[in-house]
Structures are given as structure tokens and as C-alpha cells.
């Protein structure tokens, strides 16, 4: 039988290896927030036929209308993306016609997002609130659902720790994606994040449910063995549900789906995988760490994990 729990600190380490680069990137470069959160105006224009004008030209046009904080990027497919502070619709129309006049190509508006600064702030605040409320309600629900077990509250907290783990993994992914492909944290990212949280809890509950069931059958088994046994029992289900079904669907969406959904699909792909991973390699092991009160040994000298099973 596999001893998954015996290597628990290895798994914690692997997760840290993925999470830390993202946090570092966030500290160095800051968050790449979209206009959904910061407020501002984004215009995505496509030029056919031919090449889009150099960014500097667009910047100059914006400057003519006293919009001086614009950032312009070319994104391939003859498309440019211009981000600036919030511009009134009428002014934006003027800028657009100025751009149309200055180039010989025909200009198509692919997408415009224009969000006032105050509403951006409010969205950010409410988003944080939504996630916090979701987390708390889930802890309460799990504590309630596992009320028959000793320390039901621990189950809830461990589920949340796994959840935070998944959020951090996804966050790290977005930071790396931001560096490589200019990904942004937008409303769609938020939706993906909340889905990941929902499914993370779903997976954790499946594993915990097995622990709940086994603990009433094998009363004498040490807790660590019991948890390990439960993980093994649910492993097949986790692999089949996650890898074979949900991940297949998402992979199809990433590979063949529309471009607007790609970032969303990749985040879900990684996030849901992390959700399954964390239920096995984070949530359940943390439950054992808690049961053994292992932190008492973390800084002890030479006595590491000697009492792990006591």
C-alpha cells in the first residue's frame, strides 16, 4: 500500500515551490489588474488589411485629446490594445475617429471595456467580500456536516487551508501568465477562482467523507493510517473524475475553444487539478499534522517526527 502521508512534507514543499514564484512576481511587478478592478478604458482595435500603426502613433493621438496615461500594445492578428484611465464615451468616439482618419486600413472595434474608477474599487471590495463569505459559510457547513466526528471544526479549517492553497496556486499561475502572455486579473479570473474554490471543497469533502466513514468502522486504527487508507480508497474516484472527465473537457476547451475563453479555461484546468491534488496531498495531511500536533517538533532539535504516530 502506498504511504502517501509519510511523504507529506515533500508534498507541502512541492506546493510551496509553485506558490512562491507567483508571490515573488507579485512583489516585484505588482498585480496586473484589469480595468474591471482599477477602472479605466480598454480599446481593442483590429486593422484590416495590413499592419496596425506603431503604438507610439496611437499614444500621440490619445495625447492630442489630453489622455496622457495610455499604454498601447500590439497583440498579433493586426490588433492593438490601448489601456488608459476612464474616458467618457463621447471622447472615446472622437479618439476612435481620429485613429480611423490617421490610418489607411479599416478599423474594427473588437472590444471596449470602460469602467469608472469608483465602481472598479467597489467591485474589488465586494469580490474580496464574496470570497471571504464563501469561505466562512463553507467552514460552517462542513463543521455541520461532520458534526458526528470529534473535532468537526478541524475538517472545516483544513478544507479552507486546501482552498487557500488552490487560490495561491491559481494566483501564481496568473502572475506567471502575466509575465509571459500578458494575462490580467479580470472579472472572468474571479469567476474561475470561485469555481476552483467550489470544486476544491467538493473534492476535500469526498476524502473527508471517507475518513468519516472509516473512523466509525476501524475504531482502533491510528489516525494517520486511517487517513492514508481513506485517501487510497478514494484515489481511483479522484483520478477518474478529475483527470478523465473534467480535465478532458477543459483540455478540449483550451485546445479547440475560442480565444476569449482560453485564459479562463487554462486557469480552471490548473485550478481544478490543484483542487484534487490539495484534497489528497494538503487537506488530509494537514488534518494529520493537526491531530499529531507536529508543529511542536518543527523547531525541536534532532527529534524530528519521532513522535509522529503517537
Amino acid at each position, binding site marked *: 500500500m502506498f504511504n502517501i502521508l509519510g511523504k507529506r512534507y515533500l508534498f507541502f514543499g512541492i506546493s510551496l515551490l509553485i506558490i512562491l514564484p507567483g508571490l515573488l512576481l507579485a512583489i516585484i511587478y505588482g498585480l496586473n489588474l484589469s480595468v474591471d478592478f482599477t477602472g479605466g478604458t480598454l480599446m481593442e482595435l483590429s486593422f484590416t488589411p495590413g499592419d496596425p500603426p506603431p503604438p507610439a502613433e496611437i499614444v500621440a493621438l490619445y495625447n492630442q485629446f489630453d489622455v496622457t496615461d495610455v499604454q498601447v500594445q500590439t497583440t498579433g492578428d493586426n490588433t492593438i490594445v490601448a489601456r488608459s484611465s476612464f474616458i467618457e*464615451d463621447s471622447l472615446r468616439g472622437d479618439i476612435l475617429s481620429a485613429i480611423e482618419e490617421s490610418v489607411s486600413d479599416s478599423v474594427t*472595434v*473588437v*472590444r471596449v*471595456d*470602460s469602467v*469608472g474608477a469608483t*465602481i472598479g474599487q*467597489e*467591485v474589488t471590495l*465586494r*469580490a474580496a467580500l*464574496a470570497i471571504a*463569505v*464563501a469561505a466562512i*459559510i*463553507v467552514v460552517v*457547513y*462542513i463543521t455541520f*456536516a461532520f458534526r458526528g466526528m470529534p473535532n468537526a471544526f478541524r475538517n472545516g479549517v483544513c478544507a479552507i487551508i486546501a482552498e487557500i492553497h488552490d487560490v495561491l496556486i491559481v494566483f501564481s499561475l496568473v502572475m506567471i501568465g502575466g509575465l509571459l502572455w500578458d494575462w490580467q486579473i479580470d*472579472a*472572468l479570473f474571479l*469567476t474561475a477562482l*470561485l*469555481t476552483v*474554490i*467550489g*470544486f476544491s*471543497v*467538493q*473534492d476535500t*469533502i*469526498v476524502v473527508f*467523507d*471517507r475518513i468519516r*466513514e472509516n473512523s466509525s468502522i476501524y475504531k482502533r486504527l491510528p489516525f494517520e493510517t486511517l487517513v492514508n487508507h481513506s485517501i487510497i480508497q*478514494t484515489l*481511483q*474516484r479522484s483520478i*477518474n*473524475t478529475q483527470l*478523465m*472527465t*473534467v480535465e*478532458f*473537457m*477543459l*483540455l*478540449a*476547451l483550451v*485546445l*479547440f*475553444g*475560442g*480565444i*476569449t*475563453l482560453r485564459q*479562463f*479555461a487554462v486557469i*480552471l484546468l490548473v485550478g481544478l487539478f490543484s483542487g484534487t491534488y490539495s484534497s489528497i496531498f494538503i487537506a488530509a495531511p494537514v488534518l494529520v499534522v493537526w491531530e499529531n500536533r507536529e508543529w511542536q517538533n518543527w523547531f525541536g532539535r534532532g527529534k524530528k517526527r519521532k513522535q509522529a504516530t503517537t
Partner: protein
Amino acid sequence: MRSYRWLIIILIVVAIAIFIDLPNNPGIHIGSFNREIETRLGLDLVGGVQALLEADLPEGTAIEAEKMSTATRIVENRVNGLGVTEALVQQAGEKRIVVELPGVEDPLEAISTIQETGLLEFVDMGFNPLPAGTIVVTDFAAAETPDTSEPLLHTVMTGDAIENVQVTRDQTGNYAIQFELNSEGADIFSEYTTSNVGNHLGIVLDNTVISAPRVDEPITEGEGIISGAFDLESANALAVQLRYGSLPIPLKVVETRTIGPTLGQDSLQKSLVALLIGFIIVILFMGIYYRLPGILADVSIIIYALVTFAIFRYLPVTLTLPGIAGFMLSTGSALDANILIFERLKEELRAGRGLNQAVDIAWKRAWPSIRDSNIATLITCGILFWFGSAFGATIVKGFSLTLAIGVVISLFTAIVVTRTFLNLVLPYVKEKNFTRWFGI
């Protein structure tokens, strides 16, 4: 035979679902119940404009719910006046209104129409009052380009002349609307009513008739009463429209989003193909790996897809790209429930239990984890929906709604449908063939 009873119920549900899913569905018309059935596609799929309007009042001013809903109604009227099909106007939270205009490419024009102050006119309708809701052309609004195809009505005066409006009761105790005019308006009104007693004076807001009271007697003092079959609510509504001529609360645009039609359609087509590919792979996997129960689960997953899509069309739920993703994920949930049960079934069979007993135990033991995990998902959906509603973030709302509906239906298909099929098929499976049928 309980299984057969369930089978009949399932067949009926599937039949209804297929009827609703049919393209070119004629809609449901039973007695006074009428409902058109169609697949609604969101802005991100068909392209269009979304705008979020916010009450433009000083910080800290309380916003009356009633005024906000009146404003929403007026915006809706104007949007309908734009002639956009399937436009959506919805109040979002306490102080915002979401406007979605599918297919519109130029947000500037559309939004300025919505935002401008409405034009209130009093027009002469002679002896033939036009019913409320009629679109009319007046000589005031159409002064520059008289349209010959429709009758031109004469504008007696505009809403600027109104100074005060309030709801009151007339001599017979019915609700009525009392109004006061400024001196200029009083003169015009006095002249008109003196020479037109018995005529109907139409009240027209943004070219739409809202009421057509008759002039009973000359009104010379600049004060008058409109009476009719009003209840408190309709009297209030008319009073508000007269008083503000337009929006009871000034609105400003805080957010606009434009999605070009090419982007949306491209994404839709590709995403649908992707979904289909994913779905086929999953169906094959289930059949090959779980054998008999897997194939039964495949049938129940297809039923799940039919029923869920039927509900989307019936309600209707506007399908956005995240909405389709939500649908897809709930398919994952539906499969998860089946897989949980089958893994359990295999375990019990390996432990040497008889088939019927194993099936019973598998369902019973898998149920708590299915229940708890799905409730947790539904909680998240509820919070997302609330978050989406308050900000007019229709993408977030659409996602949570499709996911929640899918999760509920997936519970039904996994617990009832797969189970019923298995019960019906089991008696025909010989014990020595277990290995082949269940892939133990």
C-alpha cells in the same frame, strides 16, 4: 415495481425536454399560458453593447427604491424605442441599471439616447384617443423631417410647462392627478382647452402615448385634474412621469463594454466544437472503463444534458461563454456522482457481496459525499450570483446560474436515472459474467 414507475416518469421528463430542445419550437401555449421558447445567447457570443448606469446623486443621498424602479422602466421604454431585439434592462443592486443591447455596434448613439432627458408632450388627439403604448409622431419632435407615412399630431405644449404634480382624490373619491402649470403654460392651456372641450389631450413621453384624458371643461387657472380609472399605483406612476418628464433620478454611465460580433461568433463556434469533443471523449471513457454501468451512466448524462438545456431554454437563461463553461463543469459534477457510486459498487462487489445488495450499499454510502460536496458548490453559486447581480456583472451571474441548475439536475440524473436503469437491467445479468459487465 418502483423501477418501472420511475422509468415512466423519466421518459415523460425526457419527452418534455426533447420537445423544448427542438429547434424552431413553436412555444408553449396552453389556455392563457403562453411562452416562446428560444436559446438566448449572451452579448459575448453575439456581440453588442453593455452599459451600467448609476444614479448620479451626491454621496450619501438616500435613493428611493420607487424612483429607481421608475427610472428603470423609463430606460426600458427608451431601449425598446431603439428597436433592438432582445434588449435587456435590469436593475442591479440599489442604484444601478444594466442595459444590454445585443447586435448594437455603436455604443455612443444608443447610450446617449437612453441617457438624455425624455421629451414630454401634450398633443391634440381630437375625438379619437389613441391607446397607451402607441408610438406617435408629433409636429414638435418631427419638425425637421415630417414623416408622411404616419399621422402627424399637433403638440400643444411640452413638459417644461409643468411646475407641480401630485396625486389626489377627485369629488367621487377616486385617485386623480393634480397638476400646476407655469404662467406661460397656463396661457397656452387656457386657450387650447377653451376651444377644444370634448377633445382628447394625449400625454406623450418619448413619442409613446402614456395617457389620453379628455378635456371636460376649460382650464384657465393653470391648474387641473386628470381623473380616470386610476388606482394608487397607476396614479403615482403617471404623476412621476409627468413630474420628471423623464428620469426621476439622473443617471450616469459608469461602465460600457462593447464586444465586436466577429469575436463572439468565432468563440462560440470553437467553444461548441470543443465541448462536443470533450463530451465524446468522456462518454467513451465511461463506457470503456465502467462497462455496463458506464454505458447506463452515459445515457443518463445525455438525459442530463437534454434536461438542463431544456431548462435553459424554458426560463430562459442567457447563455454566455462562462455560462457554457458552467454547464460543462456541472456535467463534471454529474459524472462525479456516477463515478463515486460506481467505484463504491466495484468495492462492494470485490468484497464479495451479492449484486443487489452491493448496488444498494453503493448508493447509500456514496450519497453523503455527493450531497455534501454538491451543497458546497451550490453555496458558492449562491454567493457568485449575488455578487454578479449587485454589479450587473452578467457573465458572473450567468456562470453561477448555469452551474447551479446543472448541479441540481445532475443530482437527479445520478440518483434517480442511473439507479433506475441499473435496477431494470440487473435482473438480466448473470453472476458469472460480473467481471465482464462491471470490469472488476
